[in-house]
């Protein structure tokens, strides 16, 4: 995974694999997924990245899970936000 962060826009982009972006899927107004024609996730865009703390897990070049990191004093815990989006967007997505 490669990341880029724009401190002025407070936006982070996590690139998972290279390819031509066919569609951008909005999960939340601050969380966008770029997918190719095969509906594989190529990248994850996080807006207000300093406030919306998100963990991204991949297996090989495939997105496995996106988690929401909540900050508590002296600790942080990652909770599943989206699961099962490894292959097809829209059919296997689960909000937990």
């Amino acid at each position, binding site marked *: 995974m490669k990341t880029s962060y724009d401190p002025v826009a407070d936006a982070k982009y996590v690139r998972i694999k290279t390819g031509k972006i066919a569609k951008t899927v909005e999960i939340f107004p601050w969380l966008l997924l770029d997918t190719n024609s095969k509906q594989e996730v190529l990248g994850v865009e996080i807006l207000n990245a300093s406030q919306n703390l998100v*963990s991204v897990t991949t297996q090989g070049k495939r997105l496995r899970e996106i988690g929401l990191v909540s900050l508590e004093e002296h*600790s942080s815990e990652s909770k599943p936000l989206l699961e099962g989006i490894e292959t097809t967007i829209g059919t296997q997505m689960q909000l937990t």
Partner: protein
Amino acid sequence: MAARKPAKKDSLSTVQCVWGLVCSLSSIDQQRNNISLFNVLDQLNVPKKEFEKRGDEGVLIVPMQHEIVLVWRRVINPALYADKDRMMFDIRIKVVDPRGEQTQEILFPLVFEPGKRVMRTRVQNQSFHLSVPGEYSYVVTIEATTTKERKKACEIPLFVSELES
């Protein structure tokens, strides 16, 4: 004598990984903020016949939930600057198999709010992704979000043993 230059505020030298490990479960006492770790893992025993059932990508997925717990410390030199600034880093955990190939990667942010000097991170992982038996490594690196400066924070070993049925 030349004046000493102050370190950059987001420099990786200001952050240190105190310890890290893999366990089955962790629990935090909300009143005391103490963490209890259950079943700290350093070895997995997998039947030999299970490795023969590896999928198309040559990876055996063991559906065992576990956690990677890391404790971070902000190293402050009062002569240079105080801990009044919010600092944000990216933590990258790469799971590397005995052949040196990466099977999984986890990326998450680490934020030190103003005044906070110790942070504890717990990342839940839903499964183990195993290619071959041997010694796996959870290689943890910390990366500055803006400068892309990166350094290895720690390495957690996990031995996967093949059991003869």
